[in-house]
């Protein structure tokens, strides 16, 4: 089962990976704020770009992977950059600024997330004041994502097996039914998980059945 993209490079061992997660997070957030709110000059952009590239190299993150992640925002970026010159005076300045900000932000994001183990990230988020509820939900999403993908894949296979060659129309109906069943399975799973929690002493003061 492909669980690669989540955790792909976070288990590597480089100075960046080993860096104190609190400091890493602080620097990361500071950088993002800086990039989004300050007017970036070309020089800053080039230096930051160079610095990030060096960090990526130290962290041994493959170039292809970085490009793929950046490509996510490319269509949007190109769309905007085409439009800006059409109506703004300072066309290239704004377009360039947008480009610079978007690129640096996304590179920082990718660097951060591929050098930080997810469970560690959760702990750090909690320590900077993200509400416990949100951290717990993040934890569940991470934990059960692959279980759900597996169920979805099996259901999809079942739908396809019963409609060989048929395309959109049937798949639509199938899609919604699959999702309906998946949400019910999720609900039932949550009941069992709650039971498992109770059996390991989780006590919220609520009355039993």
């Amino acid at each position, binding site marked *: 089962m492909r669980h690669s993209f989540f955790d792909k490079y976070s288990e590597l061992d480089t100075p960046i990976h080993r860096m104190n997660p609190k400091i890493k997070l602080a620097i990361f957030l500071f950088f993002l704020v800086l990039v989004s709110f300050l007017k970036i000059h070309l020089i800053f952009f080039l230096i930051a770009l160079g610095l990030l590239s060096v960090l990526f190299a130290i962290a041994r993150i493959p170039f292809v992977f970085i490009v793929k992640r950046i490509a996510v925002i490319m269509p949007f970026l190109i769309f905007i950059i085409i439009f800006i010159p059409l109506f703004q005076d300072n066309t290239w300045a704004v377009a360039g600024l947008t480009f610079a900000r978007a690129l640096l932000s996304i590179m920082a994001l990718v660097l951060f997330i591929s050098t930080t183990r997810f469970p560690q990230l959760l702990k750090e988020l909690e320590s900077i004041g993200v509400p416990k509820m949100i951290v717990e939900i993040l934890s569940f999403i991470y934990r059960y994502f692959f279980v759900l993908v597996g169920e979805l894949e099996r259901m999809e296979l079942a739908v396809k097996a019963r409609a060989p060659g048929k395309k959109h129309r049937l798949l639509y109906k199938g899609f919604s039914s699959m999702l*309906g069943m998946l949400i019910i399975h999720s609900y039932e799973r949550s009941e069992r998980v709650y039971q498992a929690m109770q059996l390991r002493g989780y006590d919220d003061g609520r009355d039993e059945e």
Partner: protein
Amino acid sequence: MHIPDGFLDTKTLLITNVFSLAWLALAVKKVNQHFTAYKIPLMGVLASFVFTAQLLAFPVIGGTSAHITGAVLLAVILGPYSGLVIMATILLLQALLFQHGGIITFGANLLNLGIVGVLAGYAIYSIRKSFYTAAIAALITVEVGAICGALELAFSGRLPLKAALISMGSANFIAGIIEAFVTFAILQVIQKVRPDLLKLETI
């Protein structure tokens, strides 16, 4: 529409973040007050479901595809505030893991998908609670959310207003229809197989 980092200007970022985070703080407070801790596994697993479902591509004409948000579905099943909290969590994770949406633009995206999608969606739904109103709420909020995204970009001087409205509005029109149909269909399946899922305590 998930707006990545770097696309909005300072004033837009400040306004959207303050507005959305205030609502989120309220939602967290309400959920803490109202739900006992046992609802966490439920919220968590349903969040996982919506997160997964958002990744599915629904084929549309011409090789393009649309995605559902599940905003109204969450609002109907768990209520507006818990729905907002879940949506916020999903947006955060999407930004971190897939670079879908950004960290600094979190407020803007939460506005478009959470405040509009979940809260306003719930408001429309509760005018007269039925699967039909849920579907209508889904249709409307997907469009309005997209329009808000367009407004944010225009207000930031990144897109001319008219172009923004037309492109965002039309691109998401079909997405709205799909969301309406799928929301309706899922609610029907739940009603048939496990109707008690629709009778949960909501907040």
